[in-house]
């Protein structure tokens, strides 16, 4: 990975004094992840370029640990040796500490002098597109010129990579140019190679204190720079054929769906409707199938009639989030006894799920392959067989009112199907006839005169 800093303000070679590095020599230091070098490809009075070049040792001891958890090849095979990232920030910090601190004993007057500077970044990862690059640097008075890098010229269909070759030009002091790079490279990359400790805030303040406050993207910069320690994910990544982390995808997709539906506050309305059924059934024991993060459970435990609320989900990640949301660990013993989270699947029979008054299946059925619906029905209506079953699912017809949908016109990339009103009713009536339930179909959310409600609900009872 590399970055070049060029001064075109005569006498340009003054850059050498500012950086404390002689233009005719290569200066090298060891860093934790390899070796960093500074050299000058150009050094004339009109133009002087100092290039910082880091040779990353991809096989170094610290980067070659045994995997503590299942994960893909990324820890071993990645762009870190090549793309400008937080490693480059660290290298800049090591090589130019004096310059960053604003000292220059030989020529103190140069420190505060703005120069015509150019920053050359041949490969910079940009999470958020070239727009983000502009939004970050233009407010700092740089002219931004960039071009994208193709993923593979032999496969033009693959399109561009998220790397950009960038040239930033502006009149800056060397110190502030280095500070900008130091802070903004990890922000562009949206990743850091090291453990994020509590001193990150201090680092951010010391390198960004002078300019960050007035930066229009200060929020984004701060959020990305001070990364929240990431939730540790388990074995799933290894089982994902595509090498994708399905738990992460789930959260992203759930968020996308919420964003789609959010103007309607649909989530809340669904829970209200379901709770109404629970109340009118006077239910004591309630089973939430596909409980996700536990939003319904959260409301069930404060219902006076509910003596036992059990949430079931197949995703261990979702159950862990539910545990945190419900604050199970801090809950009083009496309340704790009434609530339980279980891992289970709607395509397997499970004797733990029998003996409930009401079973709810909220926005879950559409996550099953259509071929498995038969088994799902046998499990829920034949085996679990609660006297009342409440089921909600999207009404596909309503989707035309939404702006953000996935490529197939559905609300969530994991939805295997979404039913129209007719399809849903036919399915529900079929279930009622087959398993001996009465069926009542109702709506949730504002009913569109043509397309019906955004969510449809069926209450099965016997």
């Amino acid at each position, binding site marked *: 990975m*590399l970055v*070049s800093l060029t001064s075109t303000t005569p006498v340009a070679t003054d850059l050498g004094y500012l950086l404390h590095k002689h233009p*005719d*020599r*290569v200066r090298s230091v060891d860093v934790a992840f390899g070796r960093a*070098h500074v*050299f*000058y*490809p150009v*050094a004339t009075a009109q133009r002087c370029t100092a*290039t910082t*070049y880091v*040779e990353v040792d*991809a*096989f170094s001891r610290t980067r070659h640990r045994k*995997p503590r*958890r*299942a*994960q893909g*090849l990324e820890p*071993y*095979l*990645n*762009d870190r*040796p*090549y*793309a400008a990232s937080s490693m480059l920030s660290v290298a800049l910090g090591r090589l130019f500490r004096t310059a960053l601190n604003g000292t220059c004993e030989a020529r103190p007057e140069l420190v505060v002098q703005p120069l015509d500077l150019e920053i050359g970044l*041949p*490969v910079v990862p940009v999470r958020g597109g070239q727009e983000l690059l502009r939004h970050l640097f233009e407010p700092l008075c740089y002219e931004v010129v960039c071009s994208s*890098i193709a*993923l*593979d010229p*032999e*496969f033009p*269909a*693959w399109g561009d*990579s998220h*790397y950009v*070759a960038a040239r930033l030009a502006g009149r800056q002091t060397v110190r502030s140019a280095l500070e900008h790079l130091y802070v903004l490279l990890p922000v562009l990359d949206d990743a850091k190679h090291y453990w994020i400790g509590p001193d990150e805030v201090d680092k951010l303040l010391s390198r960004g204190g002078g300019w960050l406050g007035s930066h229009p993207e200060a929020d984004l910069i701060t959020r990305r720079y001070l990364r929240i320690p990431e939730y540790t994910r388990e*074995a*799933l990544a*290894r*089982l994902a*054929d*595509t*090498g994708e982390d399905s738990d992460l995808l789930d959260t992203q997709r759930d968020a996308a769906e919420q964003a789609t539906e959010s103007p309607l506050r649909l989530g809340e309305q669904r829970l209200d409707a379901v709770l109404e059924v629970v109340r009118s059934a006077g239910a004591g024991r309630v089973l939430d199938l596909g409980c996700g993060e536990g939003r319904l459970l959260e409301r069930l435990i404060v219902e006076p009639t509910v003596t036992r609320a059990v949430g079931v989900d*197949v*995703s*261990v990640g979702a159950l862990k989030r539910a545990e945190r949301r419900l604050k199970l660990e801090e809950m009083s013993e009496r309340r704790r006894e009434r609530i339980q989270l279980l*891992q*289970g*699947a709607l395509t*397997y*029979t*499970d*004797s733990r799920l029998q003996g409930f008054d009401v079973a709810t299946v909220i926005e879950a059925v559409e996550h099953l392959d259509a*071929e498995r619906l038969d*088994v799902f029905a046998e*499990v829920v209506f034949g*085996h679990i067989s609660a006297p009342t079953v409440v089921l909600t699912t999207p009404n596909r017809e309503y989707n035309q009112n939404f702006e953000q949908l996935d490529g197939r016109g559905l609300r969530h990339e994991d939805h295997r199907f979404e039913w129209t009103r007719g399809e849903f009713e036919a399915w529900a009536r079929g279930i009622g006839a087959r398993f001996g339930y009465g069926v009542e179909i109702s709506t949730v959310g504002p009913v569109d005169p043509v397309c019906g409600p955004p969510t449809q609900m069926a209450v099965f009872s016997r």
Partner: protein
Amino acid sequence: MRRRLDRIEIPEIGLVALCGASGSGKSTFALRHFAPTEVVSSDRCRALVGDDETDQSVTAAAFELLHTIVDKRLEIGRLTVVDATNTKPEDRKALLELARRWDVLATAIVFDLPVAACLAHNEQRSDRRTPVHAIKRQHDTLRRGVKRLRKERFTRVYTLGSLEELDRVEVARTKIWSDRRDDTGPFDIIGDVHGCHAELLSLLDRLGYDTAADPIAHPEGRRAVFLGDLVDRGPGVCEVLDIAMSMVAAGSALCVAGNHEVKLGRAMAGRDVRVTHGLAESLEQLQRRAPEFSERVAEFIGGLISHYVLDGGRLVVAHAGLPERYHGRSSGRVRDLALYGDTDGETDEFGLPVRYPWAEEYRGEAAVVYGHTPVPEAVWVNNTICVDTGAVFGGELTALRWPERDLVSVPAVAEHYEPIRPARSAADASSGPSRLLDVGAALGKHHIETKLAGRVLIEAERSSAALEVMSRFAADPRWLPYLPPTMAPAAASGRAGYLEHPEEVFSYFRKRGVDEVVAQEKHMGSRAVLVVARDADAAQSRFGIANPEAGVIVTRTGRPFFSEAAVTGALLDRVRTAADATGLWGRLGTDWFILDAEVLPWSAKAAALIQRLYAAVGAAGAAALDSARGLLADAARRGVDVEALAARTASRAGHVAAYVDSYRRYCWDIEGADGVEIAPFQILAAEGEVLARRPHRWHLEEIDALVDHEPGVLRRTDRRFVSLSDDASVQQAADWWQALTEGGSEGVVVKPAEPTPTGDGGFVQPGVKCRDREYLRIIYGPEYLEPANLERLRQRSIGRKSSLARREFALGIEALDRFVANEHLARVHECVFGVLALESEPVDPRL
């Protein structure tokens, strides 16, 4: 005066109650004749609960413990001797209930010694003396109750009346009647004959018996097993009995009782039975024979037992079938179940009893072969099969050959008796519940018994990850009789410039005594399993599920490989066409098979990963190093000493270019099914056989023939057979590997030519991969070949991965074994689920 008792016979599976006052010598007797663990003593239980064998205050708890131990032992069929006074009827009643619950025989041994002897013995004790009055009372109680013991339904009661008898008596263990596990056959198991004499003769003929001989026998010593209901309804009852009785007497046949024999026996004994369901025919035909014949028939029927456990416990025969927990047990209930099936008195619209569909829930390892209920066709349901194909009603007379599991039938010459209701298939009746799997068998820590690797442990955390994948993404479990195992890599090579080399692989197999191996080209795509049925009907009847594609293509984690069914359908059609052309169906006698294959290109499945990871790294690397080289050249022109740095940079740039070339080889554009290639390398299973046990030569030849017919879609797997004791052969193979990998292959997989040989530390790896050095760039990173990097990588440890590969392989074969044996879906799924669970274990993904 009664005869002296000198021999006590104890059934191997059963309960023995020792009954006698304290001091009557029960414990000494028990110690002499039984293993310490077989004896459950009330005194010992007192000590376990309360530290003191004589502490009467803990009696209630001690007996609770005693009953629990007895209960658990009888459940798993262990001989259990209860050493307690057992003098009161209520004490014995509790034990008898346990024996009844687990359907085992109960024996009482009464220690009816003179009270003086008991008292004298008690006197000699130092540790646990019982009060005199208590001994006297126990003695009296026993005396009063002893005559009623038989009425209490002990099967046998032995009374020891003197110290001398007690000393001299011999205790012998006897097998229970149904236990013929030592008898390994081979057998021909014949369904309900019902007096169909002509059909029986022609069936025996077809099975290769010498029907001209008397008694009829098989020249190779095969034996017939009659499943009962030889009599009633048909025209040749006496002739059929002649054959069966003479064959059984000569040892060339076994016979279990059918309900019709039992009823005939009762009628012949003058009992009041309703002469229905064809009994009249039997009685009338017997009338025409001499009375001695009827006597012999009555004796024969009286001696028939209700079921047999055969062939090391792998086979159970019973007239109406038998749930697993009753195999090898003895009780009236077991006999009733074996004779009549599980009925609760309910009758159907034809007035016939409704039978509980026990076969649907059957998960036993033993195959159960039965008759009793006529079915249109004999089909396996969860490792059980009904072979009564209604000969007397104009259907067929069917035999199952064991252990071959082949069915042989002859048609009825006529409808001898009008059927009361149409025959219903056992598979029809079971199409419902057997697709439901219970989560209890999947979640949590559990063990799976495998033939290859013994007991395989699945940790709870692993099952939990597998459940999510299985239930959210995988195909219907009925389509998944197999998932492929991971594969062990070669041990690191010491050769300069190589991390993996065939030399190490050959040496691995040579050390384990394998002489011939096959090195197969390893295609770089994505692993896939193809389940191919001949048509949707075949899929429905064998897998219990049908789709228009009549099969599936799934990934190594059981997900549908292609999101569009049309693509799967098109590819399966091509495979089917090839199988039609080569006559594979007929050769294997099957209408389905499972292929293990690699699907190419890699980019078909991994496009997202290739773009996000592989291409991105290549793009970043090329751009960064290109720029660095330019800047370093500028600096060098200025006279700055950057020579070493520039050289290293040039070398890195070369590595990145080679890396990009590596992944590009495995990517090409596809459009639907166009451009997709399938490289099968094994035909895992077909009807009746786990073909994975056949030599690789056979697989490759069969697959070559398929490839020849569909060269556009199917891709040949190049291979070399290597004799490890022949240096020239080994060298040739190594040269071939070199040439192959230079041509851009991923490398080779080396497998023992005869699959699954066993060596010293269990079975040998089924395959070891040896990858190409250029290919490994996309695994270990572009620069892994730098000598310093290579040196570090040689320290890699492959133990965990290798162990995982063996366990997963054993589970995969076990799944196929169970599937081919028509075991319950849950038993197959357990193994497949296990493979997926093990796959989620954290191992170095680069291995």
